[in-house]
């Protein structure tokens, strides 16, 4: 039956008129969408996709203009000359390279520590049972903790330090949850065989479980890295020294720093958005699957 339907669908849809004339024939899967409906859908989709690209393209267009031609009325997409002057000046004069470094260091550290802590904890949770383990999955919105966390960081003398950015972001119950879900699926006899061979728990974790958990590690790493790279509120509060700022925090200051030099502001914005867009181009499938599988907002 299904194959029959499939054949009707596979038939060239040039028979549109026939299909219309004969309702029985129209009852193929391609009647869903038909040709006409698909064309409307494609048109609408292209329109909206193009609309969504505009705010990505406009900063690039602005950044490529000479400063004097950024504020023309009516708006022009291409100026009299296209040059990379704005990019050159924000990279050489501004703190942008330093912010890249700060963001990269702190995000990588947060990601590595989160993966380590969460996988160890999940390993423990997955095998041992003790009372009240589920309490740990209690999630408090980080936004309501900013005030007490800041006074705590003051007490630890961690204001304006990398550790001040990193430490409050490493305890992720969601990461533990993802690892635990994965570990629960690893057969026990694998572990028992290793225990009989005299392997210690840590060796079992490191040599058997972690290599098996590659997909969980990838999922946790990607969402942790993206979330910490883009985190604004916490680094904004714990960092005041411009040299210690992460990229998002530093970029929140350029509007005032550059005044009305829009080409330079947009060049900074483009450079600020670029790293994760490149990451996305490479890991599109993993990122999308990670979201679809876990429903985790960055």
């Amino acid at each position, binding site marked *: 039956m299904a194959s029959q339907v499939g054949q009707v669908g596979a038939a060239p849809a040039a028979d549109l008129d026939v299909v219309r004339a004969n309702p029985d024939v129209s009852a193929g899967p391609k009647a869903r969408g038909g040709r006409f409906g698909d064309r409307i859908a494609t048109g609408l989709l292209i329109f909206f996709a193009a609309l969504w690209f505009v*705010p990505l393209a406009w*900063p690039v267009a602005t950044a490529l203009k000479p400063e004097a031609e950024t504020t023309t009325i009516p708006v022009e997409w291409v100026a009299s000359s296209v040059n990379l002057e704005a990019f050159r000046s924000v990279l050489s004069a501004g703190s942008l390279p330093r912010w890249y470094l700060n963001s990269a260091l702190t995000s990588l550290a947060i990601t590595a520590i989160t993966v380590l802590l969460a996988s160890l904890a999940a390993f423990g949770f997955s095998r*041992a*049972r003790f009372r009240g383990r589920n309490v740990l999955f209690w999630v408090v919105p980080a936004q309501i903790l900013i005030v007490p966390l800041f*006074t705590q960081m003051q007490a630890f003398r961690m204001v304006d330090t990398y550790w001040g950015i990193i*430490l409050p972001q490493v305890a992720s119950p969601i990461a533990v949850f993802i690892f635990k879900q994965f570990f629960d699926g690893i057969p026990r006899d694998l572990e028992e065989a290793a225990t009989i061979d005299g392997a210690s728990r840590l060796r079992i974790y490191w040599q058997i479980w972690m290599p098996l958990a590659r997909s969980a590690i990838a999922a946790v790493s990607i969402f942790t890295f993206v979330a910490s790279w883009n985190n604004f509120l916490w680094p904004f509060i714990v960092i005041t020294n411009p040299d210690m700022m992460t990229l998002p925090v530093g970029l929140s200051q350029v509007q005032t720093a550059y005044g009305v030099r829009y080409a330079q502001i947009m060049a900074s914005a483009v450079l600020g*958005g670029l790293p994760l867009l490149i990451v996305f181009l490479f890991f599109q499938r993993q990122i999308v699957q990670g979201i679809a599988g876990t429903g985790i907002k960055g």
Partner: protein
Amino acid sequence: MTEVAKSLSTPTVRMARDDVSTRRTARTTGWRADLAGLGLVLPFLVAYGLFLIWPAIQGFRMSLFNWRLTGSGTTDFMGFTNYQETLEDPNFWSSIWHTILFTLLSTPPLVILSLFFALLANRVVPARWLYRLAFFSPNLLPSSVVALIWVWMYQPGFGLVSGYLVRLGFNEIGWLSDAGVAMVSVVITTVWWTIGFNFVLYLAGLQEIPRDIYEAAALDGATDLEQERSITLPLLARTTTLILVLQVLASLKVFDQIFLMTNGGPNFSTRPVIQYIYEQGFSTYRVGYASAMSYAFFLLILVVSLGQFGLLNRRRGQADG
């Protein structure tokens, strides 16, 4: 991932039940396994306790004192006075209202439009990755980049939005300077920025619907729209609920884009509650008062989450019964 878990766990359980000797060793080493398990969990527990539990407790303690960021905290105990002040502070209520208004304005388009895009993309087969790229990539931009781009686009006169609207014959609008419009402008930006997340979730949900259901419906003579209405939407109900729950909670926590685009203005007309808490804590240094407001806001989030879970469970109960 869960599929793997399911398929692997069943035979293991059966094996353990059959093998009596395994069971005995498991029992005798039980307490040691507990201890070792705790040891593995410990590093996480320390971080969790230090940077989540402790600040949460400390925040409550602070809220009971006239605690200031400058100088020592526990000198001036005031009981629940900070909470009383919170309830009587018109600025607190107006900022709560802005947060709720943002949630009310941003949630419908973020859910409905993402569903619409996903339905279109699911139907159009070629170059699906391109649409995913278009709708999802803004989601990966840091909030400050989004703010820079949109403040520039919303510029009066030579900004892109105004430029085109004026060319089309519309009047100039003060996108970020008009108190009646600024919130809508922020919502538009937010929809552009974050819709990709819901889009991806919907697309995943759509791909789980078996094709032959549509084929059967088409055989029965159901039109496209009838199919979407009577097959797609009901089968997407679970995805929609998930998206709605996540979206409302995310919207209630709004801060970045409003703070960066309007700084809560003009004339405080867009200031969300998190910004007011931030200002009380870090501009006027009244961290005790800021903590009390944090807890009041947490209560709101808690009530909303519990309400949502109640709704979820009821819906699930209906589906089962």
